[in-house]
């Protein structure tokens, strides 16, 4: 008996550096296991397919209760980065660089390169119609591999029998 083809769809709604990776890593793992993968980008997630933004994603330390001083290599246990420090100019860039370096240390590629890997591995990518309209984007703003701009209803239609993960 022919086994049923498993399908997964990831809705990417966030544009911060840390929230870009979950869909990329799970999508890549799914492709590696022979699963059909679709990625739908909406709202801030549009940054992942925006060629002007994809390699400039950031991570803000303000109000990020999981980001501890110890991430910088200082043995301070549970001591957080004080929000008052986070508002200083350059802190977001600093935290983003820290995270990018940590990711690169694991031989995990930057977001732009990772997106291309997913396309090369056969993932299908779509941009959200409402977000495109709201942000004044066109297909020319997108990285290669984005197949189309679709409405929410079209996405729902194309993901019948698909496991959907919202990020």
């Amino acid at each position: 008996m022919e086994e049923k083809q498993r399908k997964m769809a990831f809705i990417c709604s966030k544009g911060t550096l840390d929230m870009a990776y979950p869909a990329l890593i799970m999508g890549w793992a799914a492709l590696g296991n022979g699963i059909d993968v679709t990625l739908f980008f909406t709202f801030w997630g549009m940054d992942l397919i925006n060629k002007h933004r994809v390699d400039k994603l950031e991570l803000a330390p303000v109000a990020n209760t999981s980001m501890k001083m110890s991430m910088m290599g200082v043995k301070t246990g549970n001591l957080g980065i004080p929000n008052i420090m986070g508002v200083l100019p350059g802190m977001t860039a600093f935290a983003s660089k820290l995270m990018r370096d940590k990711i690169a240390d694991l031989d995990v590629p930057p977001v732009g390169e990772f997106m291309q890997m997913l396309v090369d591995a056969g993932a299908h990518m779509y941009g959200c119609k409402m977000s495109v309209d709201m942000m004044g984007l066109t297909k020319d703003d997108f990285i290669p591999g984005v197949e189309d701009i679709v409405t929410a209803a079209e996405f729902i239609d194309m993901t019948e029998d698909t496991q959907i993960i919202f990020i």
Partner: protein
Amino acid sequence: MASKVLAGKTVEVNEEGFLVNPADWTKEIAAELAKEEGIAELTEAHWKVIDFSRQSAGTTGAAPTLRGITSGSGVSTKELFSLFPKGPAKKVAKIAGLGKPEGCV
């Protein structure tokens, strides 16, 4: 754990058909495992990936991840997915007589 005859040799395999002992592996066994995975013939390009994976596992002790294969062997992502269609992660490791890759990317 079960034993199985592959290319005339009795080998131990786990419940997913992976060789338990990488030392049991031969090129003939690889060809048979490839057939099980729907790859009729192993070409030179396939061997480039398999040989790299065996070498890499020899050094690190674990099957390389897909990213490890593409960045280490020079085979592109596109090529890797077309050589081992529908799930190269497990297929490469299985055909190369290794365990599943350890690592996410």
